[in-house]
């Protein structure tokens, strides 16, 4: 099977004018990678690393300065209109819905835009409305929706024509924990049911951990890492943090195996322990703590994506 995305030496430069001086800025620098059909890829990097520029070149919005790109086997710029039938894009920050129309009506228009057969459009809309739980607000104008409701509607809008490739740019930004969870579950279902390929940019490590089986890290337009999330954690030694609320004030837990004590609060009632998922598990750490003192509550902090990215950058420049 042909790959869904194939780039070779993909490069994009911009002319930046600062006063009278013009400089060329290389936003994407000789990017070469391949995404096979059915993969779920997290595309991460700091702000301004070149993520959006890459997405725009994949979808035919921007013309590459150099290099080759094939998306769904098509040349994005030349075959833009044909490619649009196979790709769905969700921009977390910009809407493709009609703000003054009811959500349901937006779906009707989009079905016409993609020239979906009437029966197919109805079936697909029903499926998305049902799985994204949008039934209650289908007749509400888009401008009156909450952010979580609107994001679900945006995703349905991008998926209405059953694209083979779905690109999500910061899909969970600003969402509460429950809405994030729902969205992730939906995307996993969609992948299982239709074999959809996912490419997502995000600042949320949770998105990557739950949705993606492969991570691409981009730094100053260059590919800094390509592999699994576990491999990434191994490479940069990312530690997770277990936060325990204890029933009694306890001296600092300095000698729990496989952990580093990060700090205590409220006289030892709350303590933060960093551990490396390679050497121990959250359960083992918890058991060890529980033998010392009873744990009332706990939470696990995911590694911060910015932190991971910084470490990859530091590693790749060394």
């Amino acid at each position, binding site marked *: 099977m042909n790959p869904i995305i194939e780039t070779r030496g993909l490069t994009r430069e911009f002319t930046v004018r600062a006063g009278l001086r013009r400089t060329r800025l290389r936003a994407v620098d000789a990017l070469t990678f391949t995404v096979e059909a059915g993969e779920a890829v997290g595309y991460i990097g700091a702000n301004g690393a070149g993520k959006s520029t890459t997405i725009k070149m994949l979808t035919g919005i921007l013309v590459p300065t150099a290099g080759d790109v094939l998306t769904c086997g098509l040349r994005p710029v030349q075959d833009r209109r044909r490619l649009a039938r196979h790709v769905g894009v969700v*921009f977390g920050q910009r809407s493709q819905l009609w703000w003054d129309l009811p959500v349901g009506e937006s779906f009707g228009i989009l079905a016409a835009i*993609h020239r979906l057969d009437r029966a197919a459009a109805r079936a697909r809309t029903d499926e998305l409305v049902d799985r994204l739980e949008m039934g209650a607000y289908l007749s509400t104008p888009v401008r009156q929706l909450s952010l979580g409701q609107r994001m679900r509607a945006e995703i349905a809008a991008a998926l209405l024509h*059953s694209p083979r490739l779905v690109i999500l740019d910061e899909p969970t930004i600003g969402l509460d924990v429950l809405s994030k969870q729902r969205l992730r579950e939906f995307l996993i279902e969609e992948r299982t049911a239709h074999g959809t390929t996912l490419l997502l940019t995000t600042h949320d490590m949770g998105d990557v951990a739950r949705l993606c089986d492969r991570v691409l890290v981009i730094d100053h337009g260059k590919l800094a890492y390509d592999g699994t999330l576990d491999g990434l954690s191994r490479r940069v030694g990312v530690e997770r943090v277990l936060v325990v609320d204890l029933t009694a004030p306890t001296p600092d837990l300095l000698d729990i195996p496989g952990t580093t004590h990060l700090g205590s609060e409220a006289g030892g009632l709350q303590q933060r322990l960093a551990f490396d998922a390679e050497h121990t598990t959250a359960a083992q750490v918890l058991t060890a703590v529980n033998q010392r003192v009873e744990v009332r509550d706990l939470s696990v902090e995911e590694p911060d994506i910015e932190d991971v990215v910084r470490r990859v950058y530091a590693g790749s420049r060394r």
Partner: protein
Amino acid sequence: MAEPVVHQGSVGPVTRLAPYRAVLAARVRAQRSYRSNFLIDLGSSLLVGFVELAEVWILFHNVHVLGGFTFVQILLVFGIADFSFALADLFFGHCDNLPTYLRAGTLDVFYLRPQPVLMQLITSEISLRRLSRAGLGVGSIVIALALNDIDWSAARVALLVLALVSATATFAALFVWAAGLQFFLVSGAELTNAFVYGGRYAATQPAAVWSRPIKVVFGFLFPMAFTAYLPALELLGLPGPQWLPAGLAWCTPLAALWSWGMALGTWRVGMRHYQGGGG
């Protein structure tokens, strides 16, 4: 994988236009759903039209003849120009939303849909409030045709129809040209509006009184003189100034074609600039 059922291959014009029709129908519904708002819009648009007409009337209250035209004669020029501009504005006027789309990044959404970007921009909205303005234009034309002594013939009827169609197309091209330039200009709407609305205003005037630079810009570059003035000359049986003989009235379709050539060229270059493909 479940492929969507999509109409493929050669499709008829009905199917090809279905996407645009769906958007426009929804825009019409949206505007009508705010009924009182819509009526106020219609009313205010009409009021502005009357004020502009009053301006012409007051002018003629003092001079009686301007550029060889009397008031009822200039009413014909005003009517043709105002009606065609209102129609162009109705279908193309919202192209000046492009700077907003560019700033918000929502133009990218058009690139992700399987239609030409310009066609999507044109059909993204329809400004129904311009209907009242078009009505004023029709009213002016009808009154002017009744009050003027016109030697009717089949050719003159054909010329009137041809003029209205060409003038609408010419004004529409002006909107598209202005949109194409927005890709280059940071806040260019003011600059292009000077040509779009300046052009509209020039079109309602007898070109004989224009100064030399205006003659160049609105006589030929943006052929505003061809929209209403020249057809009116021919309908009224007037000779016209030396540099613009009435016989040129039959060239109005050429003026429309020239305008569209310029508009589409500007749009193309603008798109290429936006996509960064050089140009």
